[in-house]
């Protein structure tokens, strides 16, 4: 048999299999009416999940006048970009907060991924002498922890990290759950023979990890990186505990502060206005929502592309290992 004949045969076989699968699938299908009902149900649920974003965007582009007379409307009577103009005027504060958010997210993700994956790799080596000990080191924090106060005491009073950028980065860098995801992934996907052969060639474990394990384990790096990225980007809790200086306020913390104190952001009056006049002229209601929109939009644009890595990470994590 020539190669092309073989290929043809295989193609035919595949076509038959596919047709069979389709036939069974059709037999197994739910009724069209049920399908329509379920579709409607999920359309409704999806709507409920996305509607608040649409609503907040609409509020952010409402004019102050329209909000005063009609409240927060789904479709404002008069549109206005005053909120965004105001934010543009305060771009110093906003961009600084954005900078802090980005720095914390990037540095935190890099540190976190390095620590998590190296620990995961160490735990995945079956011959390692101290594996049992390290396993316990990672496992115990999953079922017992010192709690908020003890953490606060350590970070603020012992390490004196409060009001530095490190208190936003370090406490969130590693989690036992992520380490275990890595461990399970490495153990199930990396064949021992590769590592053995590298060892015979004289490679150290560090070389094996950085030259062999890292390149063939991109999915797990993506997963852990994404967990951490979203964790850092969305974090406001560390800021509210440890940060009292204005120059370390991240976007989330800015939003959090604005909820309590609307004037928080208004610091740069335009020419001819006193600070108080400027604050009074702020389109306060729509400005709040505009900042929320600024935080939501990057995530909303990015997450559909990363969702699959999230799911793969979760399914790895569920495997017992």
């Amino acid at each position, binding site marked *: 048999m020539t190669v092309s004949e073989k290929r043809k045969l295989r193609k035919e076989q595949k076509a038959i299999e596919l047709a069979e699968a389709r036939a069974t699938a059709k037999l197994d299908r739910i009724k069209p009416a049920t399908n329509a009902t*379920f579709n409607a149900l*999920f359309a409704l649920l999806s709507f409920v999940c996305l509607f608040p974003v649409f609503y907040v965007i609409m509020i952010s582009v409402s004019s102050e006048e329209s909000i005063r007379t009609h409240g927060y409307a789904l479709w404002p009577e008069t549109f206005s970009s005053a909120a965004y103009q105001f934010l543009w005027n305060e771009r110093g504060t906003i961009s600084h907060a954005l900078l802090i958010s980005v720095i914390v997210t990037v540095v935190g993700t890099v540190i976190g991924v390095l620590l998590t994956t190296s620990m995961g790799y160490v735990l995945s080596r079956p011959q390692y002498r101290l594996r049992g000990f390290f396993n316990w080191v990672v496992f115990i924090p999953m079922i017992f922890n010192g709690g908020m*106060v003890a953490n606060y005491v350590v970070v603020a009073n012992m390490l004196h990290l409060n009001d530095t950028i490190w208190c936003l980065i*370090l406490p969130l860098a590693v989690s036992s759950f992520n380490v275990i995801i890595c461990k399970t992934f490495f153990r199930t996907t990396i064949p021992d023979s590769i590592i053995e052969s590298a060892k015979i060639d004289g490679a150290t474990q560090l070389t094996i990890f950085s030259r062999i394990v890292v390149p063939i384990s991109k999915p797990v790096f993506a997963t852990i990186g994404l967990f951490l990225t979203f964790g850092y980007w969305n974090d*406001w809790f560390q800021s509210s505990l440890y940060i009292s200086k204005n120059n370390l306020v991240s976007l989330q913390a800015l939003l*959090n502060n604005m909820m309590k104190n609307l004037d928080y952001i208004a610091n740069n009056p335009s020419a001819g206005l006193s600070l108080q006049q400027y604050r009074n002229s702020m389109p306060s209601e729509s400005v709040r929502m505009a900042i929320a929109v600024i935080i939501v939009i990057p995530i909303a644009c990015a997450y559909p592309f990363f969702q699959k890595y999230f799911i793969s990470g979760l399914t790895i994590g569920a495997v017992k290992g």
Partner: protein
Amino acid sequence: MKKEKTAASAQVRPKRARWTRDDTELTLLGLPATIWFAVFCYLPMFGLIISFKDFRLAPGKGFLASLFQSDWCGFQNFNFFLSSNTFGMLLRNTLLYNLVFIVINLVIPVTLAIIINQLYSKFASKCYQTMMFFPYFMSWVVVSYFVYAFLNPDKGLANNIITALGGEKVMWYSAPAYWPFILAFMSTWKSLGYNMVVYLASITGIDGTLYEAALLDGATKWQQAKYITIPSIKPMIIIMFILNIGKIFYSDFGLFYQVTQGVPNSLYNVASTFDTFIFQNLRTNGMSIGQIAAAGLFQAVCCCATILLANFIVSKLDSDSAII
């Protein structure tokens, strides 16, 4: 001869092998993360001794020095916390909310995951999943703005609709009766897509031949779900259950603190949990730091006990499903 023998036995039982260069290198590789765990997980556990002390900041001395100089006070801090009026309320709120959340976040996502797997169009199914996953990526601060947009007494959508229908405005942020439902709804809203996708992932991993066999035997969709799908995803359900039970003395701080706008006094009795209580006292210095730490230790010990107990029970019923 003897040497060969030891080498052979080392290969058979690798655990008995001598300390090798490999072990040194792996230890070095694991060291940074171990240091992290020591500092940010184990040092706080050590810091819990503060809850057995009558801590006073000695003038002119550092925190650590004052910690060691403070007097031991036994379980006084615990007594203070456990016998205070708020304790019963906090315990009730934390446990009840968690139980409700566990049930809701199990039943609804599993049902939806089974249903979404049946849709004709895989593309539509993917779209729904993506859209429903969205709230999971929002921080509670942002979600609190969403809620505020709906519940603002003068301008919010909820009151706009109520007044348009001829009803009376509701002062949402000072009406405790509604909040158990609002909090349960928000918790479900935020994690629904996530949980559904988790269960869906394990449903799609089920061997398709099981369904084919069931189909030949004339099983209905309902029977397939009951006898194949649910038993197949049982391990996943049990893992999620144990993990959630293990957090039963904790609460999603963001949900209770941010969504209620910082737990105002009017909502104190319905929206306070151990975590909001601890945070508020830490921020306002309402209680001494030893007493707050005692509250935290109480939480941690209870959780540890619950998770071990849950795991023990599960391992007795079905030893394969236990996680420890």
